[in-house]
């Protein structure tokens, strides 16, 4: 397997499968922060120690297979061009922080891109596991199995009182960040989401816009995740998150139905206009593209637009990001050139369906 596969496909293989509640929940992710007991954390560790860790991971896990997660590819970050790093960030396979590192950092990625293990990020290891749709409990079971498999060969930094020890005090204990990516257009338009966020925060959960700034989400895509990692078990954390997400799903469905009943012509008009922009525009900025994608995806979910696959949102949200556009063009592009290429890729993708 080569790195090229990861670079050329905007949509990860696991995203092609449809998960539970996938009309609203795009994906589920669980991340565990783990450290080697005998070394300092990456922020302060000697180059030598970090090299030891990176070499160890490469020797033990490169080309390995764990359950359905096959043929781990080991990628040293320093071998990547700036554009390639950006593509991996846009596909959520590495963090922006890892992309800025210039040595002894790496990532281990399974062939279907469901597993990515960042090496020498803020912690020695950051295991991430993705699932399509809403499947928190299943994801937790699987990430625990992956964790146990890694632990067969690694002495983790663990303390009976504080749990898994991490570089940042905000991750200590379980080291776990569970998150669910949701498409909430109806709750955004009706401004209900703004009112719900403070209540969700009070439960120790965070709501974040994925592609935009703060809670101002472009494409109406929100990530809900746990903030607290100490004192609650992973199962309790996941259950709390699960019940809030269930609640959001229900509210979103109700808001969609309400809009359909109250103003279906307005709604259809908005959706078809966005469809028109996607099918015919020649220049499109990322913000407008995100808005149109969200509208069209809602149109698909409501049965207003037929014969277009649901994946169009997931796929084009990644494909139209600056890094991916430049990877596709095989050269650096000015913002204006990007807007032109973005429009042409979207047109092509829409035509492909019809």
């Amino acid at each position: 397997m080569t790195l090229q596969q990861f670079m050329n496909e905007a949509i990860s293989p696991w995203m092609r499968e449809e998960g539970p509640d996938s009309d609203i929940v795009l994906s589920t992710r669980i991340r565990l922060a783990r450290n080697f007991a005998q070394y300092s954390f990456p922020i302060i560790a000697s180059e030598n120690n970090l090299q030891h860790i990176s070499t160890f991971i490469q020797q033990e896990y490169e080309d390995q297979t764990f359950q359905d997660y096959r043929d781990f590819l080991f990628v040293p970050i320093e071998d990547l061009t700036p554009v390639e790093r950006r593509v991996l960030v846009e596909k959520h396979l590495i963090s922006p922080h890892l992309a800025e590192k210039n040595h002894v950092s790496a990532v281990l990625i399974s062939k279907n891109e469901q597993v990515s293990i960042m090496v020498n990020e803020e912690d020695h290891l950051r295991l991430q596991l993705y699932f399509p749709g809403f499947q928190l409990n299943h994801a937790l079971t699987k990430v625990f199995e992956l964790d146990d498999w890694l632990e067969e060969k690694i002495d983790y930094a663990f303390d009976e009182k504080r749990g898994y020890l991490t570089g940042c005090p905000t991750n200590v204990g379980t080291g776990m960040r569970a998150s669910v990516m949701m498409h909430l257009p109806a709750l955004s338009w009706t401004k209900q989401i703004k009112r719900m966020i403070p209540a969700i925060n009070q439960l120790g959960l965070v709501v974040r816009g994925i592609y935009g700034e703060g809670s101002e989400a472009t494409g109406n895509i929100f990530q809900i995740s746990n903030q607290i990692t100490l004192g609650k078990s992973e199962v309790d954390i996941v259950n709390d998150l699960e019940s809030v997400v269930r609640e959001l799903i229900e509210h979103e469905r109700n808001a969609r139905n309400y809009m359909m009943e109250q103003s279906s012509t307005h709604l259809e008009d908005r959706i078809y206009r966005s469809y028109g922009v996607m099918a015919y525009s020649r220049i499109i900025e990322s913000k407008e593209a995100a808005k149109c994608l969200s509208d069209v995806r809602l149109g698909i979910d409501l049965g207003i637009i037929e014969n277009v696959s649901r994946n169009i949102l997931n796929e084009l949200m990644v494909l139209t990001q600056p890094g991916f556009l430049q990877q596709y063009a095989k050269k650096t592009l000015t913002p204006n050139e990007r807007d032109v290429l973005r429009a042409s890729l979207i047109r092509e993708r829409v035509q492909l369906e019809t």
Partner: protein
Amino acid sequence: MECQECHKRPAALHFTQVINGEKTEVYVCEVCANEKGYMSYPEEGYSLHHLLSGLFNSTFESIQSQSGSQDKQEELSCPQCDMTLSEFKRIGKFGCPTCYETFSDSLDAIFRRVHSGNLTHHGKIPARIGGSMRVQKQVDEYKDELQHLINNEAFEEAAKVRDKIKELEEQRRGDDR
């Protein structure tokens, strides 16, 4: 390559800065990148980190004003990684697993605020290195169950659970030998 700021640690990060149209390459360690504000990415928990550093300072200030011995507090440094308390305070990150013991006197106040009052771990225990801890956790869970069954007068079930506890405890004594 060494860090351009402190000339002490290796440069782990690379930034390209554009000032007045001039590109400059900067190579710094993570500690300096954090301190000098090179980190510009919208990190997960980014705002949380900022909140945290403010919180650290106020927490430490109150500890210091109570004890009235600022110098002594500042001298504390970790035997494994050499991180000092003042460094930890500035960047809000630990240097190594041993830091948790080194700075343990100051941690409860911080964890309480960051983790809604929680101080101790109640989750997963490593399978291999945490073997005996795992058994203990299982025994504790069975004991809770046993109490529950006795309260409900489900004595037949209770006897089964009692046997399980016995088995685990014997197994553990065997491991110790």
